[in-house]
């Protein structure tokens, strides 16, 4: 059972209050006087609006959690890898970092910038579409691991949201200095075999024998 946040509790409390008012109105069918109108304003206006706001806040937060991403079966192995304390994949190491915690999928895959948040949520809707209306939902896991790819190459700028390329600790690494332009233009990926390793053990670009060992 997932943890109930304040937004979730507020959703349930406001929805219950509104439901009690509406059920009372439907059963008793009182004459429409000023008091009944006021009660209905709370039952159909104030409490439902508070419920909608709280459930949206809860939903927005919930959609950033790893367990949410892993609730689609095609992502279950990715989730299991991150949850595995023995795993050395980039994703797992970031998942063990308290700065990322349960939101590590979202923090690494979110778009950044002014419209980053809504764009990330819209892209998430594409996933829902592909899963429930497209064919991902019926795809066997083994096939999904081979076929489903990120929709665009992973940008190094996402790594550099946290790993600033301007600090001495970054610039003191010889490879970083040598590849600076290639890193900025995404010609070389931070998460690649020659550099920091693949993000997930199921990466399609890694050699087949390595993939088979996983």
């Amino acid at each position, binding site marked *: 059972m997932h943890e109930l946040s304040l937004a979730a509790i507020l959703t349930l409390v406001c929805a219950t209050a509104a439901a009690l008012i509406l059920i009372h109105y439907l059963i008793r*069918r009182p004459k429409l006087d000023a008091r009944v109108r006021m009660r209905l304003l709370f039952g159909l206006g104030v409490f439902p609006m508070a419920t*909608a706001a709280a459930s949206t806040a809860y*939903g927005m937060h919930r959609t950033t959690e790893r367990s949410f991403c892993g609730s689609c079966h095609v992502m279950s192995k990715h989730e299991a890898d991150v949850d595995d304390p023995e795993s050395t994949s980039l994703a797992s190491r970031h998942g063990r970092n308290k700065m990322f915690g349960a939101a590590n999928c979202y923090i690494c895959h979110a778009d950044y910038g002014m419209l980053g948040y809504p764009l990330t949520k819209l892209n998430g809707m594409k996933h829902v579409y592909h899963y429930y209306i497209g064919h991902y939902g019926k795809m066997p896991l083994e096939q999904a691991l081979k076929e489903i790819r990120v929709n665009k190459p992973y940008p190094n700028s996402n790594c550099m949201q946290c790993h600033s390329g301007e600090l001495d600790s970054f610039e003191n690494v010889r490879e970083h200095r040598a590849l600076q332009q290639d890193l900025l233009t995404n010609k070389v990926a931070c998460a690649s075999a020659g550099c920091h390793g693949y993000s997930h053990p199921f990466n399609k670009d890694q050699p087949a024998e390595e993939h088979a060992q996983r």
Partner: protein
Amino acid sequence: MNRFLKLLAKWPTEKALRVCAALGLVALALMCLGVVDPRPLQVVISMSVSQAFGGLAFIGFALSIAADVAQARMRPAAPPPEQSGDSGAS
């Protein structure tokens, strides 16, 4: 404007309010669904369909109240109570 007033005059206030209340209950249940069972489809429904239903229910409620007020104004005013002769005034 005239057409809107005619619509309000014919609006079945009591029945519409009952439909709005039922629609509101459905909306509330769907909003809670995303919290109680937070899987992708349920969360998406909780943040979209349920709010559309809730919005419709509220618009229906607002129209019903406006219609009730308009209908009350259109009703012919009740005649003033008759003055009785033995009121005790001298």
